């Protein structure tokens, strides 16, 4: 059943907000990684940023799929 336009807008804003948080979180992790003078800490931070981005990408794709359906 289609959602009312108002609920749809709110859900869309929530999803976009989550997207922005993830984006900033990844940027922060990468900034920390660049500042990190030691290995393997730098690689771990970069890998965590990649993982955060990719897990969120799957979640966001699924959420937007539901909103578009």
């Amino acid at each position, binding site marked *: 059943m289609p959602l009312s336009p108002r609920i749809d807008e709110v859900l869309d804003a929530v999803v976009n907000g989550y997207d922005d948080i993830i984006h900033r979180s990844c940027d922060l992790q990468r900034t920390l990684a660049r500042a990190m003078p030691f290995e393997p800490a730098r690689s771990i931070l970069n890998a965590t940023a990649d993982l955060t981005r990719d897990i969120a990408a799957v979640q966001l794709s699924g959420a937007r*799929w539901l909103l578009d359906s």
Partner: protein
Amino acid sequence: MTALHWESTGTGDPVLMIMGLGLSGGAWWRTVPVLSRSLRVITFDNRGVGRSRARFHSYTTEAMADDAVSVLDAAGVEQAHVYGFSLGGMVAQQLALRRADRVRSLVLGATHAGGPRAVRPSDEVIAFFRRRASMAAEDAARASVPFNYGPRCRREHKDRIAEDIQRRLAHPFPEQAYRAQMVAAALHNCYRRLVRIAAPTLVVHGREDRMVPVANAEMLAEQIPRAELRILDDAGHLYSTEQPDVDEEIARFFLGWR
């Protein structure tokens, strides 16, 4: 670790080229000589393909867009025109959304926005995509001809198709990378965010495209605020083989947004 192979040709305003499913940066071989007459053209092999390596064998278009940003960083480019083709067009959408400050203008070739509103290819094409992952490289290249090229090209330009296949076979790609890129394409979903793309955009598509039906280009052009639509009659998915003059048009589009 992920390591990306990239190349730069020509001088002028930079253009970043992002290639599609299973193809290396070398697959831009028809387009690079035209664009590099007046622009600095940067090509790269997507993760897991050609001379690039991937840390993980699971990709998303978001991850591939971050790779594209890394290539711009390595090339010392702050802002570039971006040309994405097919899966590369999906990556280019993500790039324009995630790093708007890095994209001066955008060309989206033979691509779609993803999600349930994307117009899917026929069952025959989907079955071919699934089969192709396990086919030998040469068999796959030959079997893809009816899906990649329009009827006119298959009739009148067999030589060009043969050249494409020869080039493609010179850079085979691992099955794992192909499957990972298929997953990235399946997960891609930018429809709702297209209205946020601020860059001037040219959407290019062949009317006879069987891989990505042309209705997807119309949808992209409707949703992206500053988009122009260029539909090529008698062209299929690999339109620059079928109508090489379109590369001149794309170069003029980029030069118009200096």
